[in-house]
């Protein structure tokens, strides 16, 4: 086969190492090396700073609270989507991923505009003023982040519950005593392992999150790792070595958590995929269960989509922001300004589209090669490549970005891509390569090996087998991965803030900078357009996966 052999391995590994591992080594070097000598004074300086420990405390606390928050939302939601009559509404799945796809900083800006003193809530219901103070606290931050991350946990739990629904419950019904006992002895233990995995991932994602802490956290004076790193890098006075030390610290924390997660994953994973397909019985709910379920779904949708989007759309349409929600205070002026030829907002948006398309294509190609090589990850080499290509999911984005800046600014490099658009694309590719690898891998795992064998027997050339059989079969997975990469790239903020060359802005940095120095209305108009495009892509993605018949991809 083509994607085999040592040469391929060497080549793929080199790509991954040069682009994904070298930045991390650069961070190590910058932190520990001083004039070519090993030196730990940087680390000591960091560990002595009281702020660092406070930041660590804040990050950890936030992580734990967000796990609690996402659980409160995701668990009932997963049950509702599998055990009640609401299981039938597949469109709910797509709607429920919208909060996850919404750029977090836009979501929290929406919430801020809604909840602040004299915000939209108080304009609509003046008596609700007391809520403002409660909201602008850690509670509000946890709520915003939980509403953003819950779809992720919900999907994991839902899939596990669906699988258990099959033969396990049948067996339990036949041999078991009471439904209650079946639940505690069979369903719960099986769910727990996937819950623990999911919540640890939520924890890592919370630690790595930048958008919400940067917008909402700075408002309530709650500093976490990512915002601290960004502060040291982008605010005067700059302290680059502090930023790299902190990055290293954050990286270590994430690696430890990832290791724990792996241990648990290995010990407590049960084969829940059995021969029997999870046949769905017709579910008939009592009226109050039905009502309760719909109310729960309604409240979650209102909080996770309704409120932030209301603020965003209203702000983009307001003529005079100081006049609030008043008849006659609305116009399309911001949109007009945006679509006037060559406006900064439009070109920023188009830059985002361009970067995202290139990233999607490049990662799709590299991801395909890597996935074809890894196959099922049976040999050591395959596992090594698998591990490295999935590194960026464990390493927080900002750590990679810091590493890339260090690496591409190294004085010994003969040439650098720093301060060019190439740098942006390279950064995006590294950050989002795991998506395409995972999507392609999972659609590869669905191709039966007999296809390879029969193709080999009928004696076509290896190239033809790839071109005419394998690639077309994988196409759906590749396309889904590309679309996902595109959506995620469109919203990337922290990389843009730190590495964009002069005269180049992306949609995300444009929106962010409109809040800092410019016109919020136009910023929000760009946000609305970005989100509308994202939602269209998500429906396409859902349709694509349905056609491919693998919704779990």
């Amino acid at each position, binding site marked *: 086969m083509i994607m085999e052999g040592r040469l391929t391995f060497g080549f793929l590994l080199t790509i991954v190492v040069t682009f994904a591992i070298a930045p991390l080594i650069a961070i190590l070097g910058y932190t520990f090396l001083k004039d070519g000598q090993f030196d730990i004074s940087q680390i000591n300086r960091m560990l002595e700073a009281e702020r660092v420990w406070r930041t660590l405390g804040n990050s950890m606390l936030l992580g734990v609270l967000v796990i609690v928050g996402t659980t409160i939302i995701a668990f009932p939601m997963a049950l509702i989507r599998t055990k009640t009559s609401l299981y039938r509404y597949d469109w709910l799945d797509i709607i429920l991923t919208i909060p996850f796809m919404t750029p977090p900083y836009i979501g929290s800006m929406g919430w801020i505009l809604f909840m*602040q003193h004299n915000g939209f809530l108080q304009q609509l219901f003046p008596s609700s003023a007391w809520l403002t103070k409660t909201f602008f606290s850690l509670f509000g931050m946890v709520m915003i982040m939980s509403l953003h991350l819950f779809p992720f946990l919900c999907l994991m739990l839902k899939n596990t519950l669906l699988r258990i629904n099959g033969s396990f419950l049948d067996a339990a019904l036949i041999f078991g005593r009471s439904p209650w006992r079946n639940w505690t002895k069979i369903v719960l233990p099986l769910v727990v392992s996937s819950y623990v995995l999911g919540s640890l991932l939520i924890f890592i994602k919370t630690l790595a999150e930048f958008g919400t802490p940067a917008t909402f956290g700075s408002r309530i004076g709650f500093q976490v790792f990512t915002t601290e790193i960004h502060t040291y890098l982008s605010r005067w*006075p700059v302290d680059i070595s502090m930023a790299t030390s902190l990055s290293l610290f954050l990286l270590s924390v994430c690696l430890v958590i990832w290791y724990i997660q792996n241990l648990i994953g290995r010990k407590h994973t049960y084969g829940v995929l059995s021969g029997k397909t999870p046949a769905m019985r017709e579910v008939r709910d009592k009226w109050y269960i039905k009502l309760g379920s719909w109310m729960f779904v309604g409240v979650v949708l209102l909080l996770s989509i309704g409120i932030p989007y209301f603020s965003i759309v209203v702000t983009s349409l307001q003529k005079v922001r100081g006049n609030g929600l008043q008849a006659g205070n609305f116009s399309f002026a911001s949109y007009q300004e945006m679509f006037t030829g060559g406006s900064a907002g439009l070109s920023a948006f188009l830059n985002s589209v361009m970067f995202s398309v290139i990233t999607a294509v490049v990662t799709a190609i590299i991801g395909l090669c890597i996935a074809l090589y890894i196959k099922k990850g049976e040999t050591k080499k395959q596992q090594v490549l698998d591990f490295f290509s999935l590194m960026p999911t464990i390493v927080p984005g900002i750590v990679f970005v810091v590493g890339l800046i260090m690496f591409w600014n190294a004085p010994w490099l003969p040439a650098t*891509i720093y301060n060019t658009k*190439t740098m942006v694309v390279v950064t995006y590719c590294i950050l989002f390569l795991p998506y395409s690898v995972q999507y392609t891998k999972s659609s590869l795992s669905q191709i039966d090996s007999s296809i390879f064998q029969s193709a080999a027997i009928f004696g076509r050339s290896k190239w033809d087998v790839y071109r005419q059989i394998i690639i077309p079969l994988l196409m759906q997975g590749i396309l889904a991965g590309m679309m996902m990469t595109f959506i995620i790239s469109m919203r990337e903020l922290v990389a843009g803030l730190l590495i964009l060359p002069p005269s180049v802005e992306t949609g995300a940095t444009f929106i962010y900078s409109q*809040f800092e120095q410019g016109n919020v209305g136009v910023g929000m108009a760009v946000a609305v357009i970005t989100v509308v495009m994202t939602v269209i892509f998500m429906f396409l993605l859902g349709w694509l996966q349905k056609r491919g018949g693998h919704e779990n991809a």
Partner: protein
Amino acid sequence: MKRRGLKLFATAGILLTLALAGCGNKEVEKTEKVSAQPKEEQILTVYSAGPDGLAANIQQAFEEKTGIKVEMFQGTTGKILSRLEAEKNNPVADVVVLASVASMDGLKETSQLQSYQDAKQAEKINSDWSDAEGYYYGYSASALGIAYNTKNTQEVPTDWSDLAKEQWQNKINIPDPSLSGSAVDFLYGYALAEKNAWKTMGLWKNNGLQVNGANKEALDAVITGDKNATIAGVDYMAYKAKADGEPVEIMYPKSGTVVSPRAVGILKDAKHIEAAKEYVDFLLSDEGQKLVTDAYLLPGNKEIPVKNRAALDEVPQLTVNWKGAEADQLEILTKFNDMFR
């Protein structure tokens, strides 16, 4: 077996590095070619902390007039300074425009700027705001005041200390000085010229003063009614918002305020020196100064009339010396951060 793998790996690594180096070299060649070409093909890189609209208008007018293409990085003063620091190994910027003369002076002291003494019309520019040796020119300035929401404010404040009163509790904010050059300038000038400055700041803190991001973010909180007043609000933003119909007004406290100059200078590592000089000339020219006043800023050249805003001599000023201020500013910033974060 293992060794062979390693060898292949190494070869691949070298090949890739070479390929990358190749790409990079091409890039370098390109830029060299560009600078050898006639002026209309030149590219000038400007890092500018300016009001968005102004920076863009200047860029456009300059490009039209000279045919030099401008690559612009816009950010707050803090962002630009940190970007310069991060890029020390491979500098890109030719011209830097900062919203703080003290920071500009700091760049001069660490010899990151070069002198351009014979800039056209330099003699007309306010000498308090510029360097005597021509390292930077204060081409414009903004006066810092109290920007307040006209709908929610019953009693207009007359002085800084008024904001420590109870009716302003939890209703005041200040731009974050580590992001906003003008806010640092304010703290510096206020702390130096006013005996009770730190005491007043303490009172503000007890009165719920919020540190609110960059300048526009702080002003937006006042515009939307989240807060009622911004301390050290930049006046040109308030005038602009007012012109757009927002319920905002700015006042200058009677005991005096800080006028924060914005300066332009040419970086020592600038690759396009001639173009950079033309850019400085343009900012100091009558045409450039008019663009400045159109953005509601105070012009560096006093002869240019301002419109719809208070002129320089109508603003009660604290006496501030900007030369060598950077170290003191850093100290004040640290003290402020310890107090508020």
